[in-house]
């Protein structure tokens, strides 16, 4: 049934439909509406599991870890500093091969403190062993949760999944979202049947110390599990499409690629703005298309190369930067082409940090200037020289 609801509410309702046994979270802007909505559903007995209000994100993630090793399905949501505070636990959960779904309401990282959207938080966790999926709009954000549990709990994967949705831009905006019935979700997502869990009848040890004799092998298996996720993501996405009639791509999605000479690559909510920009540019005869990255971990190298190998120009929009290296998505896309005979011109643009609007003009200007620039390092776009000149003086006011 279609409902006109806030992104956070759509996600909260989707999570409850997935019937987690334990939810534990700590409030942080802009994730708050998700946990407030879940709390209200708990208060109304619409969510019938345990809701554990904790004293920090670190404990929220740890409570989830304890619940999952006990054989429960668990959920948490966070963003930004909260994700960083959780990070020690998140690496640990992936290493222990524990399924979990975590919603990250993407937000900038401090300092300077800033509560608005960018992808610095999730990107900082890219090496954690979490599967990372990025939503373009609220329908996709909600739908990703049903799929995320199924991917996460697949026996050949058993890895936690981070569902990324842009803070405020998605979490706080109202859109029509098609919400399935409980029966439909139950038919798609069976209850969690873990291979191993804490059980007094069959006592086992979790999280033991592994020395130089076995550590590499355990980490190799983690890498293999992430590779297995490709097949499982594909299977689950197709099954979802079959049951619910909605699809937003598997690893990537494309828009107006047929005769495109230039392709813009991006992830998250900016994809919507890019689609509108493409329509405008095409009306002016500019042959431009879009490749959206939906699955960032595992990194879908093959799908990306297949999609872009015959394209002349590739513009990568990054809403985060690896300080000292540049656009993270751009770096990985360039790397994907290493050894390929046909390599597009790939340039990297850092845009929209800390909630800075990415407008149609931002996109059309980048495309318009592309022919004039050589292949170069990541460029910060639309910098305000007033703040740059203030320099240290500005930082002192923080």
């Amino acid at each position, binding site marked *: 049934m279609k409902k006109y609801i806030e992104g956070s509410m759509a996600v909260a309702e989707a999570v409850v439909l997935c019937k987690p*046994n*334990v939810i*534990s979270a700590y409030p942080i802007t802009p994730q708050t509406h998700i946990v407030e909505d879940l709390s209200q559903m708990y208060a109304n007995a619409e969510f019938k*599991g*345990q809701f*554990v*209000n*904790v*004293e*920090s994100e*670190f*404990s929220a993630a*740890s*409570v*989830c*870890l*304890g*619940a*999952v*090793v*006990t*054989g*429960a399905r*668990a959920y948490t949501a966070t963003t930004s500093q909260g994700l960083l505070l959780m990070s*020690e*636990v998140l690496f*640990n959960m992936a290493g*222990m091969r524990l399924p979990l779904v975590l919603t990250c309401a993407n937000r900038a990282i401090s300092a300077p403190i800033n509560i608005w959207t960018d992808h610095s938080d999730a990107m900082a966790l890219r090496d954690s062993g979490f599967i990372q999926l990025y939503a373009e709009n609220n329908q996709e954000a909600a739908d990703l949760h049903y799929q995320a549990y199924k991917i996460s709990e697949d026996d050949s994967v058993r890895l936690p999944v981070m569902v990324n949705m842009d803070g405020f831009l998605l979490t706080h905006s109202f859109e029509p979202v098609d919400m399935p019935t409980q029966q439909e979700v139950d038919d798609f997502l069976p209850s969690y049947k873990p291979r191993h869990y*804490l*059980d*007094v009848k069959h*006592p*086992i*040890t*979790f*999280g*033991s*110390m*592994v*020395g130089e004799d*076995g550590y590499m092998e355990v980490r190799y298996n983690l890498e293999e599990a992430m590779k297995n996720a490709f097949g499982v993501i594909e299977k689950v996405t197709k099954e979802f499409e079959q049951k619910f009639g909605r699809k937003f791509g598997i690893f990537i999605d494309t828009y107006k690629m047929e005769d495109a000479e230039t392709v813009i690559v991006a992830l998250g909510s900016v994809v919507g703005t890019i689609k509108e920009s493409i329509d405008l540019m095409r009306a002016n005869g500019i042959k431009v298309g879009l490749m959206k990255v939906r699955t960032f971990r595992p990194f879908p190298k093959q799908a990306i190369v297949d999609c872009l190998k015959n394209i002349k120009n590739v513009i990568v929009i990054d809403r985060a930067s690896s300080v000292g290296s540049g656009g993270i998505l751009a770096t990985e896309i360039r790397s994907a082409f290493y050894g390929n005979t046909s390599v597009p011109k790939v340039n990297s643009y850092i845009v929209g940090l800390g909630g800075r609007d990415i407008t149609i003009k931002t996109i059309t200007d980048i495309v318009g200037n592309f022919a004039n620039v050589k292949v170069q390092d990541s460029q910060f776009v639309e910098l305000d020289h007033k703040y740059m000149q203030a320099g240290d003086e500005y930082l002192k006011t923080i």
Partner: protein
Amino acid sequence: MDKKKHLLAPGHTACAGCGLSMGARMVVDAAGPNTMIANCTGCLEVFTTRYPQSAWEVPWVHSLFENSSAVGSGIEAALKAMGRDQEIRVIAQGGDGGTADIGLQSLSGMFERGHDVLYICYDNEAYMNTGVQRSSQTPFATATSTSPFGKASYGNPTRKKNMAKIAVAHEIPYVATATVGFDMDLKNKVKKALSIRGPKYLHVLVPCPLGWKVESRLTIKIAKKAVNSGIFPLVEWENGKVTNVRKITPEPVTEYLKLQGRFKHLFADNDEARAHLASIQKFADENIETYGLKS
């Protein structure tokens, strides 16, 4: 279950005379097989779970250094959610570092939320796993590798943070101190704690021969002397009130201190050393007075 079988099996890699290994075995034996344990990083985790072996005969999980109380909270919440909480008891445990220092916040959270979990702190009074660095449980004037004795130092400059009182301040139903020196007392406290619903805290003094620089055959003796000198009183608090103390005929603290290399510098023949010893005797006297320890 075979009554002679311990739930912490022998063959692990703890040092000879390790008080922690004795304490952990007493605790899990007293708790019984229907127990699940969340464990902090530390000596106990390292010497009992070197992959592919494990000494634990109960379901057991180690995640990180500072989160066993939050992991324990999650285990309890999951058992409740799945209707398995009636027959199973949950223990979260760690060393003094994992409990009183890096894990204090998550422990406080577990108390405040009222989880039905027994938390055990095995206190060997320093970071033994990393090589005897000081913690907030290291006693005054103790020489450790990060509070050594030297020209400008008499060892650790601070007093032991009172964890039992911090637990009591959370208004939880049961708090007690215990030690491997009195094994029946320790086991009875574990059983009593597990018969009570809600958060419980047990602070167990476990001598570390390596870190305390004592002979490994003296572990039990030294633990008894800690109690009998009044420096480590055995106390029970139920619903915030002291309900039981172990009465002693106090020995001078020097009887306890002189057996340990970590206090060797306090026995030099000078006024400064004597002043430090007098301070420690004063701490013991305060305990004897506060808790009415004299038999």
